[in-house]
């Protein structure tokens, strides 16, 4: 898990153009004297157990009930927005290139790699529907869903917010995101829909009516909601 704070990663300083630095030993720098963990990009990290995630989720639910999903989404949203600014800086520093000049898929993979190293899971971006103004993100091994187990509903609101926040900043348009399939619903992986607010609201409505991820994909591809 990552938080923000500036610090120096010695290996990174020694070899700033090394790109294959996502192994556990390379990516994290442990300072036993200070009791800190700093990642390759100088961000302060903390390691937490699954109990922390359960405690966060259940504590929030106890405090605010069903609104906990919206709160987790909002936390993710702010995180994603902040992280896009942070990413802009370290990407340019590492590759001598602005994020706006880079190849999109390369850019996105580069953004997500630190998350994979930090234990947030692997992802796959499905851009096949981009011309219709929406896209899907498949997430494998979600830290939240894996921890909470099969609870029969989507639980990765933090991720949905993170994607919405990051892409909103990157695309410079207000985008929303919803998890339409979750490991915690008994599925093998989590699936997120990213797009304009109207589409995401429609998907949320269909989900409440019992639609599956496949139903939602079909309805969107059929052009039921325009962006």
């Amino acid at each position, binding site marked *: 898990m990552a938080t923000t704070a500036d610090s120096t990663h010695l290996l990174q300083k020694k070899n700033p153009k090394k790109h294959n630095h996502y192994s556990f030993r390379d990516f994290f720098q442990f300072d036993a004297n200070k009791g800190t963990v700093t990642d390759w990009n100088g961000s302060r990290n903390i390691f937490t157990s699954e109990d922390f995630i359960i405690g966060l989720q259940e504590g929030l639910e106890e405090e605010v009930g069903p609104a906990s999903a919206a709160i987790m989404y909002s936390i993710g949203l702010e995180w994603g927005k902040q992280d896009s600014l942070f990413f802009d800086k370290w990407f340019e520093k590492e590759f001598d290139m602005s994020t706006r000049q880079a*190849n*999109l898929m390369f*850019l996105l993979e580069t953004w997500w790699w630190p998350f994979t190293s930090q234990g947030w899971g692997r992802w796959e971006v499905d*851009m096949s529907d981009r*011309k219709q*103004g929406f896209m899907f993100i498949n997430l494998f091994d979600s830290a939240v869903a894996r921890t909470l187990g099969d609870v029969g509903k989507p639980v990765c609101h933090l991720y949905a917010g993170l994607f919405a926040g990051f892409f909103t900043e990157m*695309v410079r*348009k207000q985008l929303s995101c919803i998890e339409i399939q979750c490991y915690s619903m008994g599925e093998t992986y989590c699936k997120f829909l990213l797009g*304009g607010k109207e589409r995401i609201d429609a998907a949320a409505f269909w989900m409440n009516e019992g639609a599956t991820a496949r139903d939602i994909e079909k309805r969107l591809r059929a052009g039921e909601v325009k962006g």
Partner: protein
Amino acid sequence: MIATAASRNGTAALNKAEPWQRQSVRQFFESVSWEGPQLQQVNVQTSSASSAPMRLSMSVQTFFDTFPWDGSPEIAVPMAPLSQPPEPAAEDDTLTLDAFSELF
């Protein structure tokens, strides 16, 4: 394993007077229908020749011998191959953030 060459391959090359156990290796393997032709003559018309239902009292060998295994297909001609999925757009390789932003 108890089996006869005839029952395994349908070849008629076996000399019925001589059990296959007494054949030399060469004789035995020469009697095997390696190329797959010449099924044993069965006294039942194949399903292609007759629309009468096959009797359930047939032996397994007789039943399966009625199938036109090597013959022309009776049911349907093979489907034309499905059209190839479209090639991913070439622009994928060059898509930048600005171009992507235009799509939303």
